């Protein structure tokens, strides 16, 4: 395991950039040092569960040390010994049993549709676009709204898209980062087998976390994998979606770590936002490669932090308040949940709203209102998406 660390020159750039070092016991340079001089790193005092796997450290390292992989290795050791936080245990057991980390049964995975007509792929089916919704937008009531907005927006593009319905299973991105490598391998195997039952053109996801693992860690997929921001941005450029309407608000974009830092997608979400008439777009002082992590990644949605210091999402929201924006836009369900929580705890609910980019587009297009007014809207709009529910 230590091989990946030999290049380290102990310059400390990793720890210097690590967003959670300032609020927890995690000191990644020290962890590496201890490992190199063969002191065992296993105590929870070292804060290995505080890491959000945002990968700022790996990006900053001048010697190309894969620092995040080392954290995952340390977590794997604890997973193999079985002594992990009860919430980590329950999350992993839930993925194993139900195919999602939220402890919810598979039969309810497509309930978010609320009767919306979307084609659900059956074995042997072909689709030009497959929308991988992801566990959180499938089950969490707030982020279900993102999935519904996505469906409305896609229907205006008149594209042939489908979803997997209750066949969809956790991608494993967070499972891997919590150190449960065996379960991750199992998910890769099962998901790959599932996808091979269909003929898929382009596969796209709500979450940058799902996108990241499908794109970079599944080796045997033979279709194009995109995050929705790149796909919808292209649809807009091609004129397939025309952002009419207006969204006259001051908006700042929060870069999700798994979209930006880990997959170099910085421009498309901004282009997409700029294409919406009325938006005045702002930037955080720390943005793009320097963007501040919201602490939702690396399994941190299910890991209790040991620290009482201010959460990074709260810092982020306060920065947004200084910019006097109306909306913090993001493109990740985890970012949305952590930031929205921080808006509430900071008592900024009346002045700042957290929205996913696709929700902004949906609102500008007035699609939700339209749907509420005209119940048969879905039938008139979805010209080429067969209803099969």
């Amino acid at each position, binding site marked *: 395991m230590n091989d990946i660390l030999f290049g380290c020159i102990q310059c400390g750039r990793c720890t210097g950039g690590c967003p959670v070092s300032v609020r927890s016991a995690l000191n990644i340079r020290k962890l590496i040092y201890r490992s190199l001089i063969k002191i065992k790193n296993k105590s929870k005092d070292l804060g290995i569960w505080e890491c959000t796997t945002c990968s700022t450290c790996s990006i900053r390292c001048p010697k190309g040390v894969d620092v995040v992989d080392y954290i995952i290795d340390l977590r794997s050791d604890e*997973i*193999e*010994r*079985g*002594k*992990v936080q*009860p919430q*980590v*245990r329950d999350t*992993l*057991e839930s993925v*194993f*049993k*139900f195919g999602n980390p939220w402890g*919810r*049964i*598979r*039969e*309810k995975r497509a309930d978010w549709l609320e009767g919306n007509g979307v084609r659900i792929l059956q074995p042997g089916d072909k689709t030009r676009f497959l929308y991988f919704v992801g566990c959180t937008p499938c089950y969490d009531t707030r982020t279900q709204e993102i999935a519904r907005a996505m469906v409305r927006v896609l229907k205006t593009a008149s594209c042939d898209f489908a979803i997997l319905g209750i066949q969809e299973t956790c991608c494993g991105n967070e499972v891997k980062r919590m150190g*449960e*490598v*065996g*379960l991750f*391998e*199992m998910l890769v195997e099962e998901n790959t087998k599932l996808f091979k039952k269909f003929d898929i053109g382009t596969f796209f996801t709500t979450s940058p976390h799902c996108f990241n693992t499908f794109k970079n860690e599944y080796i045997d997929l033979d279709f194009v994998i995109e995050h929705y921001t790149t796909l919808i941005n292209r649809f807009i450029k091609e004129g397939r979606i025309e952002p009419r309407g207006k969204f006259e608000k001051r908006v700042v974009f929060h870069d999700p770590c798994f979209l930006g830092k880990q997959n170099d997608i910085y421009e498309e979400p901004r282009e997409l936002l700029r294409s919406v008439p009325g938006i005045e777009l702002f930037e955080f002082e720390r943005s793009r490669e320097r963007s501040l992590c919201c602490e939702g990644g690396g399994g941190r949605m299910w890991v209790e932090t040991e620290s009482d210091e201010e959460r990074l999402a709260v810092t982020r929201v306060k920065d947004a308040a200084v910019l006097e924006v109306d909306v913090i836009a993001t493109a990740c369900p985890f970012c949305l949940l952590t930031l929205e929580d921080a808006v509430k705890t900071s008592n900024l609910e009346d002045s700042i709203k957290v929205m996913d980019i696709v929700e902004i587009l949906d609102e500008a297009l007035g699609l939700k209102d339209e749907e509420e007014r005209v119940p048969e809207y879905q039938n008139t709009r979805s010209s080429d998406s067969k209803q099969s529910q």
Partner: protein
Amino acid sequence: MNIAVCIKRVPETAEAAVNIDSSEKHIIPDQLVFDINEADNYALEEALLLREKTEGDITLFTVGSKESDEVIKMGLAKGATRGVRITPENLDNLDAYAVAKLLAEQVKEGNFDLILTGCISSDVGNSQVGVTLAELLGIPHATLVIKMGIEDGFATVQRELEGGLLEELKIKLPALFTIQTGINEPRYASILGIKRAAQKELRVIENITAEGMKAEVVKMYYPPVGKMAEILEGGVEEVSGKLCEILKGKGLL
């Protein structure tokens, strides 16, 4: 110290719809997800914690179908020494007494100092197998144990009684305890651990018929729909508002 732990594979029914088959005696398992019975998981953890302090083996016993190997393997992954699965031909018609009798026949051979079971199964909820097993083995038992210590051939156990009362007992080993949930924090069994556990000993006892049943399931059915339930309609805010009004009206808030 030699410990036996009796475990059971049960369906998870917190959110799932439970359907009854045409015989009206069994539920339909197809759509259900199964796991180790919750209280048994705590019993297993208690055995593992004890073994961290003293030398000895942990043997897992279960009465169930081949699928029960899943929960045995999970226990082996966590550190149990070996597993025994008992699958009688009339598996579908067992009562708690028959299960206890099947277990007793195997457990009595093992020379165990301590036998642990969960205090209740989450599917049929009899709470009978543990105590019946103790009777059949002719050893003392204590139920609903929430704390346990072993010293010099004796166990000191705490039991939870009604009204928040605790009872402490000193019991000579060998003895059987039925373990209450919450006594510890069960560990996680990793998938690689479960795969590796396939190399551990798992003895299967088949081609036997359970005898001596004293109870028979006559019929399984849903309780008739009562008139007392009031379903509140509307969004979250509306529903919670209505709920507050009702609770206030009944003097509960």
